[in-house]
């Protein structure tokens, strides 16, 4: 890679975007409060365009090809979403405008809440959380407050399966609660026996991901929910994997009490190289009063009386709310994209998306299952986990396979997660990949398995065809060069 940093393109005295001349008289500046130097780049607009265009070309992205990063649902991001979110009447509204002047936005938020309710079976939704982990924190705080509100102050224990995403235990301990890890059984389900010891008055509940991070539908799900409810606990659902279930099953119906959605996974909003996401939280009726304030409601009276002065859609603060979890109303422009997507799919479309996500995953699995060790051999849902190691190629690791995939111009799967599988490769093709693209990926995986035996160094030294060769992470952590420094370069 030869692209310099923007700072290295800087030429003293060069100017970028111009602004209009000042059209008001100047006022006196507070001299003692002013900064001496503003060390920003001095580049032209052309420099900026070319630099970032060249940087963009160093990235892999869904728009280039299959991106089967397990647990991330890297489906195609429809372009109409981007057009919709950039409409001037959406980009140009201030969050503190009079509600009467933002009825279009509130309509959209209200109806997105309704769509998510229909898909999940929950009774109420808050769109405020900014991402999946933020939704988890919100949901766990709701569970905590529900118990406190009932006077059950001794409840402090959250059960979390060992296959769970790291955000689950992290969100729980941020909420001041105790994490107890529950093992998985031989079929990849939560171990019911292991749970029994915790069915007591200290139980807050369980955080469960279904399908779990092995891509498997937990065969004990109903029993788990029942058991936890009987002990007075609540069931949290990590909705990261809703792409396997929408239109197939509603989580609230089987006994999940609170769940976050990832609009940036299931509902096709782009991931942006690390965000923004959006992590709405759905709850059953008894938890609705605890949702973060505010949520959008429809004033039925206003409609009936057709009074022009009263807004039809308004913000409402739930009475026992855990409080606001971020400023203003959530990631509105992400909501527009998810709304657009759901509006284009309808009942049949969302079910089809889930079905084909599951079809693609099982098909890809069928193509490689004889070559890559499969720790849990079941029909999978939208993703599956194999081991990235071979008996007859002992030096090869999942990391080597991942890096070698790069040479073939595709994106590697998630690796080393979930933690309960050795050398895990977690693969999620999503429904938007064609059979040809899935076949191409399978062919590459099979070819790499061959190479692992015939020429393992090809894998160890991969990638060979990328903007940079394998990068030294240990060096980065030791050097701690975390910013550009003019004086040192």
């Amino acid at each position, binding site marked *: 890679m030869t692209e310099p940093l923007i700072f290295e393109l800087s030429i003293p005295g060069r100017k*970028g975007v111009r602004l209009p001349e000042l059209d008001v008289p100047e006022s006196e500046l507070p001299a003692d409060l002013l*900064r001496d130097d503003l060390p920003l780049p001095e580049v032209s607009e052309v420099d900026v365009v070319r*630099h970032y265009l060249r940087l963009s070309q*160093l990235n892999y992205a869904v728009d280039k090809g299959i991106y089967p990063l397990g647990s991330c649902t890297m489906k195609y991001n429809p372009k109409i979403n981007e057009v919709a979110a950039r409409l001037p009447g959406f980009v140009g509204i201030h969050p503190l405008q009079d509600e009467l002047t933002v009825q279009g936005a509130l309509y959209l938020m209200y109806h997105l809440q309704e769509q998510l309710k229909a898909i999940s079976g929950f009774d109420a939704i808050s769109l405020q959380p*900014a991402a999946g982990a933020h939704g988890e924190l919100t949901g766990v705080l709701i569970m905590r407050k529900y118990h406190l509100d009932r006077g059950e102050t001794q409840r402090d224990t959250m059960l979390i399966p060992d296959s769970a995403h790291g955000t689950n235990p992290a969100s729980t301990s941020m909420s001041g609660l105790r994490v107890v890890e529950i093992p998985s059984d031989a079929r990849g389900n939560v171990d019911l026996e292991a749970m029994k010891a915790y069915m007591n008055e200290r139980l807050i509940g369980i955080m469960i991901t279904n399908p779990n991070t092995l891509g498997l539908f937990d065969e004990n799900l109903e029993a788990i929910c029942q058991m936890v409810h009987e002990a007075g606990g609540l069931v949290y659902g990590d909705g990261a994997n809703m792409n396997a279930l929408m239109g197939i099953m509603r989580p609230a119906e089987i006994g999940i009490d609170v769940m976050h959605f990832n609009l940036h996974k299931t509902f096709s909003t782009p991931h942006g190289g690390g965000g923004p996401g959006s992590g709405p939280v759905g709850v059953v009726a008894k938890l609705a009063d605890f949702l973060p304030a505010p949520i959008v409601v429809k004033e039925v009276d206003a409609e009936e009386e057709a009074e022009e002065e009263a807004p039809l859609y308004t913000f409402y603060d739930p009475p026992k709310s855990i409080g606001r979890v971020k400023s203003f109303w959530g990631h509105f422009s992400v909501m527009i994209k998810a709304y657009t997507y759901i509006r*284009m799919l309808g009942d049949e479309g969302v079910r089809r998306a889930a079905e084909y996500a599951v079809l693609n995953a099982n098909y890809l699995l069928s193509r490689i299952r004889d070559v890559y060790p499969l720790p849990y051999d079941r029909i999978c849902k939208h993703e599956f986990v194999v081991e990235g190691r071979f008996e007859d190629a002992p030096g090869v690791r999942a990391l080597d396979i991942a890096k070698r995939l790069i040479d073939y111009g595709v994106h590697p799967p998630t690796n080393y997660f979930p933690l309960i599988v050795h050398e895990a490769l977690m693969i999620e093709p999503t429904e938007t990949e064609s059979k040809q693209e899935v076949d191409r990926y399978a062919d590459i995986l099979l070819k790499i398995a061959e190479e692992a035996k015939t020429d393992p160094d090809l894998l160890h030294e991969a990638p060979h065809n990328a903007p*940079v060769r394998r990068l030294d992470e240990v060096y980065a952590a030791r050097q701690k060069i975390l910013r550009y420094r003019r004086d040192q370069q």
Partner: protein
Amino acid sequence: MVFVPHTEEERQAMLKAIGVEKMDDLFYDVPARYRYPTLGLEAPLTEMEVLEELRELSEANLNAYRTPTFLGAGIYRHWVPAVVDYVLSRGEFYTAYTPYQAEISQGTLTAIFEYQSLICDLTGMEVANASHYDGATAAAEAVIQAYNVFRGKRKKVVLAPTLHPHYREVIRTYTQGMGLEIVGDEALEKPLEEVVEMVDEQTFAFIVQTPNFFGEIEPLEGLADEVHTRGKKALLAVAVNPISLGLLKPPGEYGADIVFGDGQPLGLGLNFGGPTLGFYATKMRYVHQMAGRIVGETKDVEGKRGFVLTLTSREQHIRRHRATSNICSNQGIMTLAATVYLSALGKDGLRKVALANYHKAHYAAERIAALPGYTVVADKPFFNEFVVECPAPVAEINDFLLNEWDYEIIGGYDLSRDYPHLARHMLVAVTEMNGRDEIDDFVEALRAFADYHQVEVEA
């Protein structure tokens, strides 16, 4: 089939390869009585139809870019150079995931490294992370970082009452299970000098904002020393408007330990308040207590420079329940917007934006102060926002500006919503987007209201 490319023949071939007969067989494990619910979503629309609906919805909103607007309070109307959206629209950037595979994510990683550097330069700090969700959640993470610096042995945090109300609220939401003592903002009128006196040896942090929620530039000189002394090394965390740093001395120069804020002014639209960007910077000695992703420079096996996510042992995917935070996805593309914005404006441009904000706000304040019935309340210097005591409740004035005046004006923020003692106080924001005509008309409208109000009162 919407966004599903398979043909019927392909579907059959795939089912056969899997070894099942029909699609339903793939869902054998979903208990039958819950399977295939009727959702009741509205009938699907095509792209053409859905855009029509969305256009209608968007047009049902009053667009603050096309309407004279004096509303700020945390979200500001600034000029966004065309290059920003151009770069953000590149599919290579916006359709990528978090850069876990560094070798094919050098575009994103390099841009984040630049972003971290720009934030450090702007704030005068040593190290920045790759973002929080927004200014409010960055505030909560600042509290948690400071708490962890003292390993949880201190429980008290002092908040300036002039910290954005949403920040104060989110701090409380985040920490409700941590058993903290949160003080300082019980008496909302209390001046900063008195609030600082609440810092003691049980205190782990003092959190202050500048320009504060009322637009005033807080005197940071000596504040860090005072907090460090009173609180025996307690941390000073400062929230800041990044545009103001085009002009003002950065908090890092005053000895702040953490500097954070909302990056919305840096090239992001209004978007009804989200997504924005929480920027966050601290001192190098606290880097292991800082939350969030961090990008670091390294080299590949051939010695070529490259960038990777680093110091990950702080994070949830490694440390699980002992992580510094649960944050995973953050505000990736928003940091790219800020990076492009700061680069495109550069040294000269950002200073000009800051100056325009300062001068226009002061021009507006001066004109409003000259109106009968209105008083500008400013004990300290201010940046691009200031408080006006009005002759009537702000809601009434704003209603007049929007509905009774010759054309629509979006007035300032009604401070009584958060500060009951400021019953008739409007927070007025002025940026480079407010032309002189717009400001003059706003002043005329305020005058007209006062006249009309006078008539009403007399009648």
